[in-house]
């Protein structure tokens, strides 16, 4: 059941994306509308997958690679929907939907077995800790997408257009930074309650620390005329690479007791 909805959602994201790309200059309204409907359907299926998973496991979809990939991509999709309905903005979809698509594809080929959560992870602190960190990752992804568009349109785009991208980058980094700081606090509280230490020196925590400092830096470029625009857009893209390192790289390439 979960699998069917997962593939349906992958298919609709794919189809919606193709329709969106075919209409890059926004002149073919029907195509754009079809794409919007498809993406909304994809998100509905995606949500069903998550809901089924939550019912099956009895906890938030945050344990193991299968669940986190589902949840990470879902956060981006929700964010895209907010952008669409509140701001009628779809350009960044061109970059964020492939991220969703790839994450879901990776999830489809990951181990989706249901495991009992160890006793130490059965707490709200842990669940909100992970959920907020994935919202942050999604917002940082959006910031990178906007940064990439800034660079792409730097020569051809109008000032207003560039202003929009720049604004998305700063605003979503500020939102992302808020979620990320909250996530680190929640993780610290959980660690303190679970094993008596609000901080552990291991690679996943260290990677979070570097990500936090990195975005402090990015936020403060707003005060520096010469860093705004091109440099901060590049920084947002590098930030996405660091996010991927923190989320996936640490557990794939390094030994970490975080065990996610």
């Amino acid at each position: 059941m979960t699998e069917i909805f997962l593939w349906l959602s992958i298919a609709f994201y794919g189809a919606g994306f193709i329709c969106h790309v075919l209409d890059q200059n926004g002149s073919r309204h029907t195509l754009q509308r079809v794409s919007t409907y498809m993406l909304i359907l994809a998100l509905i299926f995606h949500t069903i997958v998550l809901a089924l998973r939550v019912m099956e496991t009895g906890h938030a979809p945050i344990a193991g690679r299968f669940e986190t990939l589902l949840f990470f991509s879902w956060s981006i999709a929700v964010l895209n929907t907010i952008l669409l309905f509140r701001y009628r903005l779809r350009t960044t979809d061109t970059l964020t939907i492939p991220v969703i698509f790839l994450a879901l594809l990776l999830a489809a080929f990951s181990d989706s077995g249901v495991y009992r959560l160890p006793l130490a992870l059965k707490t709200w602190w842990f669940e909100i800790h992970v959920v907020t960190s994935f919202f942050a990752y999604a917002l940082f992804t959006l910031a990178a997408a906007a940064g990439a568009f800034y660079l792409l349109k730097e020569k051809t785009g109008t000032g207003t257009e560039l202003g929009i991208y720049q604004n998305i980058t700063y605003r979503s980094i500020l939102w992302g930074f808020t979620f990320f700081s909250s996530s680190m606090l929640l993780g610290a509280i959980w660690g303190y309650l679970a094993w008596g230490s609000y901080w552990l020196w291991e690679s996943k925590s260290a990677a979070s620390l570097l990500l936090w400092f990195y975005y402090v830096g990015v936020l403060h470029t707003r005060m520096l005329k010469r860093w705004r625009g091109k440099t901060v857009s590049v920084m947002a893209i590098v930030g996405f690479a660091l996010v991927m390192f923190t989320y996936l790289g640490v557990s794939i390439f390094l030994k970490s007791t975080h065990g996610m």
Partner: protein
Amino acid sequence: MKSIWKFFTSARLAVVLSLLITIDVLTGTILLSSSPKALGTIDLEIFFYWLFGTGLNNLTASWWIFLLLALLVLFVVNTIVCTVDSIVFMFRPRRDAARIKPRRILSQAIHLGFIIGLLGHLVSSASGFRTMDNRLFEGSSIPIPQSSELSLRLNKLDVAFTKNGDMLRMDAYLSLIRDKRVVKDKVVRLNEPLLYQGNAVYITHHGEAPESMKFELSGNGTQEIIKIKLHERSVTTNWGYTLKLENLIPDFARDSKGKAYSASKQFRNPALEVKVYKGEKFLVSGWFLLKYPNKTPLAFDGLKLVFPGLAYRPYAVLTINKDPGTVIILSGALIFIISLIGLLFIKGEEMELVKRQTLK
């Protein structure tokens, strides 16, 4: 002096420092997983004690932590100077009120929260204590480290597993005692420590240790259970018999010549020789082997004595820590995050995810 101040008010310095910290910690992330031997003990001690002990002796793996500290010092000075500068700027007399904007106030509150939080880290890195593997048996007490008056008693340990062997619960019913009076009762389980005046008590695992040797004396349709504590040599039963332990081999084994010896000091496979008396009168003696509980019963007065095994007593393994920095860190973090959230929601188009007017 003025030029030093000016140097530290620079936002460019803040950006450059945060990038340097990023690169340093990125290296650290890799070193943390590639040098488990050198860095693996870092969380077992108070941070500065570790850093200036083990850390100094393993500089090839720990250099980045020292560099991080140096960069952090610069960063904190940078933040303090910027914050002071900005607050002075906002509240200088005869300035127009427009300078005091919500955004500016909240940004400075964020900086203040960060500084307070870091101060808490400093306190927590240099004070308090961490102790692990404190064994506490059901019914007994241990003192809280570095406290002359507090002690901890385990009233009951309740552990349960599922059919597959997954742990369902591990509940330690603890009482914190001062001057023989209970000051706090708490069921400590995973994620639910006992917190009291900066002390924190956690349960990490549990176990049971042999406490006594158990015998069953039966006959005439009744039965008596007799226990001899591990460090005791004899016991007198309710029925008036005295059991004397003549020989005790905790971990019975035979060498190549067939001679008995103890393979270890643990009570894995005890063998014991018992003599039975009624008052002063010797009745009977014999060997008991744990592996053959019923094969060698001793018979006397129409009764039967068997040795079904050891009686165990459960214990909890506790971590007991004290960290006076946590309250300060929590206060700083809350100021930080509440101000950040405030920054997201203060009025004005600027606070939207995208500037709305630019979209039209």
